[in-house]
């Protein structure tokens, strides 16, 4: 894996929704083995930036660059899955779309890993926590090198949070990277190497957690 270029980068990326600018031009790079936390108040542009990095949204300006062959997994804040399909069927469908070699085996592995019910119960009937787990499990299909997680622990119990961060640590140790949006500063301090702070659609800080603590942590949400 080359480290001359970032795994994933946003270059002057902005996004407008009609007349509203959700994100002003930003530059963000994600390097091998690091975890980048996106912080900021509601409506700051964190989810938009993650969607742009994932390729789920097209930028109004600028470009998203991905190192050749790098696979990206994305878990949006609101679970993205088919409510009429069971957890297994959702996983198998997305595994096939991701080009997994053995979709059934991949689905089975993730069902066990995330403690999801294998029964043919529609995912819309799962608990909020289970739906979020399924959302995260789908993001892990295709063995991504970069994980983009939008407030991933919001509906998880402590045990599931621990498992998630263990998985993220394993990914980083294998040379992958993690970008996650959160409102939880404890998670930032425990998991992140760098912090990108956004406010009103503008990137107001990007640097180490220590720098963020010193300069912005008290004023960002003011």
């Amino acid at each position, binding site marked *: 894996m080359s480290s001359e270029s970032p795994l994933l980068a946003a270059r002057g990326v902005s996004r407008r929704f009609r007349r509203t600018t959700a994100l002003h031009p930003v530059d963000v790079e994600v390097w091998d083995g690091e975890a980048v936390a996106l912080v900021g108040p509601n409506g700051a542009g964190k989810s938009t930036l993650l969607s742009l990095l994932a390729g*789920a949204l097209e930028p109004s300006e600028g470009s998203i660059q991905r190192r050749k062959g790098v696979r990206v997994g994305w878990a949006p804040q609101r679970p993205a899955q*088919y409510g009429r399909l069971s957890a297994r069927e959702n996983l198998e*469908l997305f595994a096939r779309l991701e080009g997994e070699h053995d979709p059934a085996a991949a689905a089975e592995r993730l069902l066990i890993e995330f403690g999801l019910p294998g029964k043919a119960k529609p995912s819309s009937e799962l608990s909020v926590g289970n739906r979020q787990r399924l959302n995260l499990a789908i993001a892990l299909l295709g063995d991504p090198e970069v994980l983009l997680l939008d407030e991933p622990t919001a509906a998880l119990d402590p045990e599931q949070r621990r498992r998630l961060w263990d998985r993220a640590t394993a990914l980083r140790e294998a040379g992958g990277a993690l970008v996650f949006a959160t409102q939880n500063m404890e998670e930032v301090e425990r998991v992140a190497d760098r912090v990108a702070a956004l406010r009103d659609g503008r990137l107001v800080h990007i640097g180490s957690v220590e720098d963020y603590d010193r300069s912005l942590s008290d004023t960002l949400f003011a």
Partner: protein
Amino acid sequence: MNRIVLLLRKDTLVLWRSPVLLGILIAYPLAIAILVGLVAGYASSKPRVALVDEDNLPATVVVGGKRFDVHHTIRQASRDVKLVRLSADSAEHQLRTGRVVAVVTVPPGFIASLKGMVKSPRLELQLARGTISSRVEQQVQALVYSLNRQLQRAYIEHNLRYVSLILKGGDSSFLGQPIDVLGIEKAEKLLDAMPDTPRNGQLRGFLHDARLALANTGDALRSTAHPIELVRAPVRGRTWILSAEVQAYALGLTITFLALMLAAGSLAAERDENVIGRLARGLVGLGHLIWAKIALAAGVALVLGLAISIAFGAVIEIGGITRGEPWRRLPLLVVGLLLAGACLGALGALLGALAREARSASLVAVLVVMPIVFLGLIPREVVPPAAWASDVLPFAHSVRFFSAALYDLDPWIDVLREGLWLVVLGAVFGGLARIEARRLLA
């Protein structure tokens, strides 16, 4: 292609697991068939008409020397209505409550006027208020017309007997008085026995001309009674017309409704379930997504269309209706169902992309269906702009394709033209849907 199949399988599974939607899918064509059947049944039904006899109609009546069985004559004349004999009060009550749609009253003195042959006897007609009153009036007029025709025949025959008396001579009666008529033929014989004088020659010439003229009186009287006679020509070529037209419209309406709703709703649902972003990030292109919805609409159109056609065909077979072609044309109908379903699916996908939310998309689809269908039903000759608007929508082309495929003896030109229309319209709607689908990502 594989991704389109994956999405199509998923949509089919989702559809299968949506009992309400599935119920509507099955019930809708049935409801359409029942409604069409009711309308067709109503069109050929006999309205109930009360007959109030205030003249005590006898079992038989002699008019112009001809004896009429009154009940048999009324039965013969009332093939289009169901006549029920009621008292005046009962008829009045039933008319008010809608149990009869009209009351025909035979007033006192009717038979006397009829026998007298001096002035026309009158029947009185009372109609219920409502949308079918004009139709009932027509049917009662047809009843009176039929009675008149039978009476005319009697009158003509009665008059011809007098003509025959003038021609051939003999004993008869007139206004109750016995008469003895010499007749033209006997008069000619008497003249032949007389000397050949110029005066006799003039009389002989007159009697000759009179005999020839009176010999044609029968045809002249009949043609005066019926200046124009309508003769129904035997039907050739297109058989099974009613059921084929009904089937074409039932198919067109069902497919239009379902394909639009399904394509619009299922495309917008991808956004509602927040999945569209996940798909669009390289897993499935927006174009593939549109294709999957078009394929879904075409597939459902095919399955339901075939189910309706097979049901119609089975009815034809069970009913022993000959000269229908319920099975031979099915392959051509399959092509039409796929093309119509795909074209309507493309239009539905466009609506789904514009509406963006499944609920709004379904509502828009329902609202759009009716104008599309009605535009397709307005005859081109009546409102040309409506036909032009209908030309750029799939419904009318679908119905014409189905009609041609089902019962035209030589359907190929119509099928090719309408098929081409559906392909072109489908491509335009599909292209627009692909452009608008970007809005779903916002």
